[in-house]
């Protein structure tokens, strides 16, 4: 196992070195912008998005009846994911005026449709759980 770990680490360092070389030598004027984006991205994910997930989970645990809790938390998680993916298209900052075939859909209503299906599924799931409560689930 030690040999495998050493091999992985050496390969990892080699790829990292190659990437770093490219990062610093290709368009060196853009390095600052990339570093800022890199740091901002991970900070937004770990220090904003995840606390939001935890808070939503906590509020659900507090205010939603036990039988519906898991379906509601699941629907919240799926809704958040789909919304993040849809957001750049809903905002539409990249739309090209003379090219209607790029981003041809109405993405706001499209997102609402997906959310409606997700919440409908969650509602059916919760209703089934209320009617047939399961005392324990296998782990």
């Amino acid at each position, binding site marked *: 196992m030690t040999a495998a770990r050493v091999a992985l680490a050496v390969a990892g360092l080699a790829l990292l070195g190659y990437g770093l070389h490219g990062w610093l030598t290709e*368009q060196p004027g853009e390095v600052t*912008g990339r570093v800022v984006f890199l740091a901002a991205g991970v900070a937004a994910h770990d220090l904003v998005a995840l606390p939001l997930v935890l808070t939503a989970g906590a509020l659900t645990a507090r205010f939603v009846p036990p039988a519906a809790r898991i379906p509601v938390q699941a629907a919240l998680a799926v809704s958040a994911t789909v919304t993040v993916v849809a957001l750049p298209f809903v905002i539409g900052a990249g739309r090209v005026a003379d090219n209607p075939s790029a981003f041809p859909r109405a993405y706001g209503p499209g997102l609402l449709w997906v959310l409606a299906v997700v919440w409908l599924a969650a509602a059916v799931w919760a209703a089934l759980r209320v009617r047939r409560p399961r005392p324990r689930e296998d782990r």
Partner: protein
Amino acid sequence: MVRPARPLNMVRTVQHRFTAARSTRLTAQLGLWLAAAFAVCFVTGLLSHAIQHPPGWFHWPARPVQLYRITQGLHVATGLACLPLLTAKVWSVYPRLFAWPAVRGLPHALERAAVGLLSAAAVFELVTGLLNIAYWYSVMPFGFLGAHYWTAWLLAGALLLHVAAKLPLLRRAPDPAAPAEPGGWTRRGVLALAGSAAGVVTVATAGQTVRPLRHLSVLAPRVPGVGPQGVPVNKTAAAAGVTRADGAYRLILTGPGGTHALSLADLTDLPQVTADLPISCVEGWSAGASWQGVRVADLLRLVGAGGLDLPVTVESLQRSGPYRTSTLEAAVARDPLTLLALRIGGAPLHLDHGYPCRLIAPNRPGVLQTKWVAALTVGPR
């Protein structure tokens, strides 16, 4: 159900609920899924990069016809599906992010640095990839291509370092399962949730390349069948600064046998061939179409280059831009499915599809299917 909230009590409830499903096994499973997904993205990304910027040793065949389409559809779909997996992965170890002491010696510091770089590079790749398929370049203070490409190497390196650090945990016997809280999240539940979120995102977008899904994919950036003559367009003639060619148009053919200037009527008089080929974009969308035109091999024969092992440079009427020209490898140029297309679905090409003629070849990135072709030149560039 509304009870008066006591903040401290609420925090304890959170801790309790959200630690119940967390386990090394869950983290390892999510990690393996993510590693597999990142590997798919890395390989398909490098492949597309090599096709577009081929090193001397690299050759990309003309068959299978759909291979490029599949690899790039997979690249984007896999990347989008990674979003919920990544968040679930970080969620599964979230309390450890704030473990104290933050650093226990040099090895631990290096391990944490690798994790930090891995998380940052992963978020960077997923976010820039998403912004790119939405053309939202104004929020990226750098060129997308180079940043996405080079950060992929950082991500791959940090991932290997992370696996090297965590390998003993993967090999270790799983922890004795903590008793599941009745009605709470289980390990399988969390995995199913991450998988479902990835599945919903996939169904909502993959119709941009998987045609049968196109009616379900309400968030697809492109829709096969939607566009001039039923095919989406990436760069319009107006954006490329190309105006409609008139009667003075001549295709300039240059080879060892001399130079020919062919009018559109000359091209129409040559034997016409039909090929069903997709336009496959690196951005993950693709659309099949039926193209009619002249075999490039037939044109090469006119200038005495039919049997020669020489590449062909295809040049556009477009004045500038990185995709103004493209090079056909010798074998690809002579492939029977490689056409200078004049028509699509029986009608003359729409100007946005490259009127008067465009290159269409099997298993080739869309950006290299040069539109508004002005010249074909045989010989090394």
